[in-house]
């Protein structure tokens, strides 16, 4: 009797699971149909990516997959260039700065409406800034880290003029304004949806939000009343989630999706050979590095850290794991960032020199460390475990033994943040293309416990960073950052590995797609050629 019951239960589970599988299939089939139905005008673009958005309110998230969507639903006061991080007019047409750099007056664009029909005006801007400021510090992370103690007051001078008063000079003020989290949301909608605003985004962007099925897809449709005439060209965009890189590429091959990110570098060659597909490369605004915890064991010694820098063959890494779509990193930030120091010389790959330095440091017989390998693929680090294996072999050549360890991603970050890692692979994608967003964020002593995983501390560098933050003179800032890079090179808190150009792939019919270095692409110019 018992056996029969068990059998029945099994059968029930089987039937149920089949049902679920059936449902998921029909829903993805539905996606396709919607796309075909909307084919009268610009058509539908299905953009597949590795993870779902965390929130569709850009102000309360720090996560890139969220910005990919919100970039198209909302707009910022200042825009970045199409494929760079130069500033351009956005919702603000013109701006003016007072002589002391503490007052900024922005003239807003007229005749812009939110998707809910309410007007975009100075009041709306003030509302947004006050919302971020009044909010919980953890929740509005970006506001607090970029503007927190800097913005004193935001005032509506008239219907279309806003005035910002600052406590101190903030050099990257306009670049910060152009970041996705500082997009202007409809005050009426924020009030209406309250806590649910993260799921009901209303902005002024080229696309309106339609629906969000968690872990499956986000659909946005054309904003017919968009202020830029003739845009957007597409009728709708569907952001789909396909976690596995190879599965995503497969979906592109079968025509299920139109555009994918997170393409394995090893697949680039075969995609380029395929006439029906094309590849895109995101301009590099990232750095992958091997952090060396400056407070642990032998790594405390500067000579040891320099030795490890000499030991790593970056060129080989680029060729093997990035299919050449990357360049060896010398400094903690890529060349495109203003203030990059060209004069800094990299530690050339030189195992002999490394051995000699280790000998000088008293580690003639080497030592043993843990080498942490990222468990997830990131645009700057396509395969952490393999890169770790290559570095392991590099280290072994100079007598340093390493044990490769890995944890689940959140645990990995948490442990590294607490300083439990010896040498660890990590990376960073810039938010706004400012040197501050790389150097200060990753290597200032203030950032220990957040993004300074290497526990690097140098009072001189700290002084340079603080100085650079509080001057508006771009030439002066660049000088300060250049000096800092020299000191950092000598201190060698990391082995900077590469700056990669993340690869994407799409159907050959796609035109007008421009991959943005920040990772959030504006899709209003994209078209599907027939």
């Amino acid at each position: 009797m018992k056996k029969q019951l068990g059998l029945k239960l099994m059968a029930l589970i089987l039937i149920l699971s089949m049902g679920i599988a059936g449902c998921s299939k029909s829903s993805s089939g539905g996606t396709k149909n919607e796309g075909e139905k909307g084919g009268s005008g610009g058509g539908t673009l299905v953009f597949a990516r590795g993870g779902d958005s965390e929130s569709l309110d850009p102000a309360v998230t720090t996560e890139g997959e969220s910005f990919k969507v919100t970039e198209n639903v909302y707009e910022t006061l200042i825009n970045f260039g199409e494929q760079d991080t130069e500033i351009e007019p956005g919702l603000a047409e013109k701006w003016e700065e007072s002589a002391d750099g503490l007052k900024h007056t922005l003239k807003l664009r007229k005749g812009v409406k939110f998707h809910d029909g309410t007007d975009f005006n100075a009041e709306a801007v003030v509302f947004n800034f006050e919302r971020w400021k009044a909010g919980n510090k953890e929740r509005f992370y970006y506001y607090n880290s970029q503007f927190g103690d800097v913005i004193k007051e935001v005032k509506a001078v008239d219907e279309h003029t806003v005035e910002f008063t600052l406590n101190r000079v903030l050099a990257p003020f306009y670049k910060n304004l152009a970041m996705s989290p500082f997009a202007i949301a409809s005050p009426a909608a924020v009030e209406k949806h309250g806590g649910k605003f993260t799921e009901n985004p209303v902005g002024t962007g080229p696309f309106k939000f339609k629906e969000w099925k968690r872990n499956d897809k986000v659909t946005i449709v054309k904003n017919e009343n968009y202020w830029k005439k003739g845009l957007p060209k597409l009728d709708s965009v569907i952001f789909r989630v396909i976690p596995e890189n190879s599965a995503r590429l497969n979906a592109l091959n079968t025509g299920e999706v139109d555009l994918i990110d997170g393409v394995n570098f090893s697949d680039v060659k075969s995609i380029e050979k395929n006439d029906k597909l094309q590849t895109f490369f995101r301009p590099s605004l990232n750095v992958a590095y091997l952090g060396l915890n400056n407070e642990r064991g032998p790594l405390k010694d500067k000579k040891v850290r320099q030795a490890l820098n000499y030991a790593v063959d970056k060129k080989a890494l680029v060729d093997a794991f990035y299919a050449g779509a990357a360049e060896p990193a010398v400094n903690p930030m890529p060349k495109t960032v203003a203030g990059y120091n060209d004069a800094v010389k990299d530690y050339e790959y030189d195992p002999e020199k490394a051995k000699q330095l280790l000998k000088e440091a008293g580690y003639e017989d080497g030592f043993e460390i843990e080498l942490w390998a990222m468990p997830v693929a990131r645009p700057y680090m396509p395969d952490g475990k393999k890169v770790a294996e290559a570095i392991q072999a590099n280290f072994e050549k100079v007598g340093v033994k390493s044990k490769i360890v890995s944890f689940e991603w959140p645990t990995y970050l948490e442990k590294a943040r607490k300083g439990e890692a010896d040498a660890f692979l990590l990376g960073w994608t810039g938010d706004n293309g400012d040197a501050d967003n790389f150097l200060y964020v990753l290597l200032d002593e203030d950032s220990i416990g957040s993004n300074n995983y290497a526990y690097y501390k140098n009072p001189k560098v700290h002084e340079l960073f603080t100085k650079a933050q509080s001057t508006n003179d771009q030439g002066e800032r660049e000088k300060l950052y250049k000096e800092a890079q020299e000191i950092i090179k000598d201190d060698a808190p990391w082995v900077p590995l590469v700056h990669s150009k993340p690869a994407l792939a799409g159907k050959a019919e796609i035109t007008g797609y421009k991959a943005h270095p920040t990772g959030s692409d504006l899709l209003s110019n994209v078209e599907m050629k027939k």
Partner: protein
Amino acid sequence: MEILTEKQPQPIQTVKDEKTVSPWQEAWKSFRKNKLAMVGAGIVLFFILVGIFAPLLAPQGINEQAMAKRLQPPSSQHWFGTDDFGRDIFSRVVFGARISLWVGFFSVIASMAAGCLLGIVAGYYGKWVDAVISRIFDIMLAFPSILLAIAIVAVLGPSLQNALIAIAIINIPNFGRLIRSRVLSVKEEEYIMAARAVGMKDSRILFRHVLPNSMAPIIVQGTLAIATAIIEAAALGFLGLGAEAPNPEWGKMLSDAKQFMIEAPWTMIFPGLAIMLTVLGFNLMGDGFRDALDPRMKN
């Protein structure tokens, strides 16, 4: 499983007879006649020799990376081609034999020892001891074995040694049940009764009489279990729960190669072949042992 309850010819212990052939010798004779079994034994011997003489056979070390030479097809210089680190796959497969055989032998020896002990105790003493031990075996057998192995490795942490421990643990009930059923039938034999009647101690009865008379099925099961253990070790390695980089464990090599399956199939074919051949060897040999040691198969 029938062989377990079959009675074996009783060992000749009493009268000394010069012409008598021991059952072991007889088994060896019939094993030698079995061609497939000899092929299996040959393969096993081959891999054992490869493992022992790996440093002499392998042209390179296991982790000599040369990025410039990555993913090269088989050539006279690299017989099995190179992997994505430019390492010589032939050398890695050769050294991999050591790892796989090591895991295979030692995990089986460990589970055999533990399984025999528990099985003898359960079978000989019976009653509640038997009930407890047998239910534990049932519980362990209720899990798909690889799942149980994954769970054990997850608790212990991924490493080759822990994979070995996990494989040893999951195979205990197989040996335990086998020996228990053997003991149940053997202990009713007259010579055991006699031993008891003369007041022999339990431990002496168990290890001098019961165990030796249960050896045949254990040898068969043991040989076959090595094959399974090698596959299980490869599966754990494939899942990233076995050998650590840069150890050339065959399963791990397969997993590392899977993204180049189309581009560079040799990265996958050779470790795959190595697994297949060793497992085939042990299986053929195990079958041969079974035939040879099973009294019913005698002509």
